[in-house]
């Protein structure tokens, strides 16, 4: 089975986020990027499928700071092919542009199964998987937390609210939006990554132009603004605790 995993990089929330002078986007000068957590799970799920049933895993990412290291780490985990999309992405790449660029690539490499993170925290658009399926004429199931392969199809385990789990048989080729792999993304020893850097190759694919049509436009971006009813309690831990006890008594919860 040929498994393809398109991934993207998102702002690392360990660093403070600031909004640029235009007021509608993040200030990228201080931004550090990190793999989208759901995409990291998609890679893990792909490796698990390969370990269980064989196959080839291709991981695809658009050029960004840290992408090479991530791709080599994926290879150290067991990915067979690494592809880096290159081009002018300075204006950003929304889900629609990404899906169009990836669809062209997938028409060429013809994977049996495409796994991608069901969403990313930077735009919460969640549409790359479903758009890809539409452009490629494949079925799509999102919010998947576990995949097993069966003759010519896969069984996708999907979690619903209220503790309900569905198992769906999906005919291949198909696209799955991964919410969680069956196990947390594995750690690979740094020496293994270093070895892979010497033996693996990252294939570069130029993307001539991006078509962002259909995406949402951000009109204003701001930090959360405190609501009127919020009260900030200040002071030493003892003072704060005393004030809290007073408030709890007032509210009748204590």
């Amino acid at each position, binding site marked *: 089975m040929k498994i393809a995993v398109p991934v993207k990089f998102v702002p690392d929330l*360990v*660093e*403070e986020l600031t909004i640029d002078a235009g007021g509608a986007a993040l200030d990228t000068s201080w931004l550090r990027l*990190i793999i989208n957590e759901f995409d990291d799970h998609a890679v893990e799920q792909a490796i698990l499928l390969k370990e269980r049933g064989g196959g080839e895993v291709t991981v695809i990412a658009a050029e960004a700071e840290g992408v090479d290291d991530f791709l080599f780490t994926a290879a150290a985990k067991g990915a067979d092919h690494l592809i880096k999309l290159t081009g002018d992405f300075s204006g950003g790449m929304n889900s629609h542009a990404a899906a169009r660029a990836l669809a062209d690539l997938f028409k060429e490499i013809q994977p049996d199964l495409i796994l991608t993170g069901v969403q990313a925290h930077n735009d919460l658009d969640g549409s790359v998987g479903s758009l890809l399926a539409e452009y490629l004429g494949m079925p799509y199931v999102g919010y998947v937390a576990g995949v097993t392969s069966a003759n010519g199809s896969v069984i996708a385990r999907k979690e619903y609210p209220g503790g309900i789990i569905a198992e769906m048989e999906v005919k291949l080729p198909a696209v799955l939006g991964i919410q969680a792999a069956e196990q*947390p993304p*594995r*750690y*690979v*020893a*740094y*020496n*293994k*990554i*270093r070895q892979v850097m010497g033996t693996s190759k990252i294939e570069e694919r130029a993307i001539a132009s991006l078509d962002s049509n259909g995406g949402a436009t951000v009109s204003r971006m701001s930090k959360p603004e405190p609501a009127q009813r919020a009260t900030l309690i200040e002071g030493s831990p003892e003072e704060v605790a005393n004030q809290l006890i007073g408030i709890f008594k007032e509210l009748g919860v204590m």
Partner: protein
Amino acid sequence: MEITLSPLSPSVSKTFLANLIQLKDGERFRKCLQCGTCSGACPFGYIMKFPPAKMIGMLRADIFEQVMKTDSVWMCVSCNACTAFCPTQIPITAALMTRVKEELLLAGNVPSELQAALANTQRYGNPMGESPRKRSDWAAGIQPEVNVLGKTRQPVDVLWFVGDYASYHPRMQAATKAFAKILNTLGVKFGILGPEENSDGDSQRLAGERGLFEMIAQKNGQAFRKYQFGEIITTDPHAYNALKNEYPSLGISYPVRHYSQFLEERLDQIKPMLKKEVQAKVAYHDPCYLGRANGVYDAPRALLNAIPGVELVEMSHTRINSLCCGGGGGGMWLDGFQWEKTHSRLSEWRVKEAVAANADVLAVACPYEPPRFEDATKTVEAAGQLKVREVAELLAEAMGL
């Protein structure tokens, strides 16, 4: 949790032993008497399926792959007790335990708690996953201002390697500030690397991540080379051990001292400044990587003895026989794993000893310890009044800082 090493091979024992004897003093593994002292000295030996002596026995019997199938070795806190008491001085901690962890890590068999700390170290240069840019945030408000070398580029006498927990842990920042104030009061011309400082990497190395250790050591080495300083001092015994014993083989060689040694040398200058009495019975806990691994037992005690009002008492495990806090060799990031196995904590054991010694204060000199021991005072009966203080904090208090 059963661990499988794949692919299994009957030559596992022979290959492993051949690699082991290549390491420093590795030949001594052939001379093991099988006396079992190491297993008895190990604070977790009672819970391991294969405590150290048994591991060596399995290795000699060519059935070492059975050891590699268990997760025994992740209970090892790299405290060096086994090594310290071995009559043949076999490097059990440095070679055997660490090599087994390295093999398991390469095979991908790592408890998930530990993985997060290693992944954080790889990405952020510290095991907690804090922002590297905030590494010197603790210094805000200290006067005169702490000299971050990347900003001032001034030559200094002393480069202070602050370390991970001393930089970021909210409890430890109090001790870090206390030491900064002491240096300022003594008029020491010092600087820190701030955002350019990375984890010393020693605990990650002892948890089996040799490659990661080398990578971040090189980053620290590059930072050291950029600035002019006379010597390195550090508030972290793990950093002290790495800088003194491990970095030189990577071509990173500087004179280094633990802060207690640095201050002991200045005791004549410090003594007249210790004006405030600290009335307390103080039990000093020897950190594994200051005491047993590097033989520094007296400097911290000399500092404590100089404080008026302090009465030093000793706990039942002391000096070379000190008891690990549980944080070494990756233990700092395996609390849940250790708890699952033993339903006890080494830190609680230690706090019970402090209570038994009638101590009012448990004094420490390693940044892993205050959070661990303070937590233990909350769960150990009769430990409610026991205070956990860094030696630097007690000194600063006596100096009225």
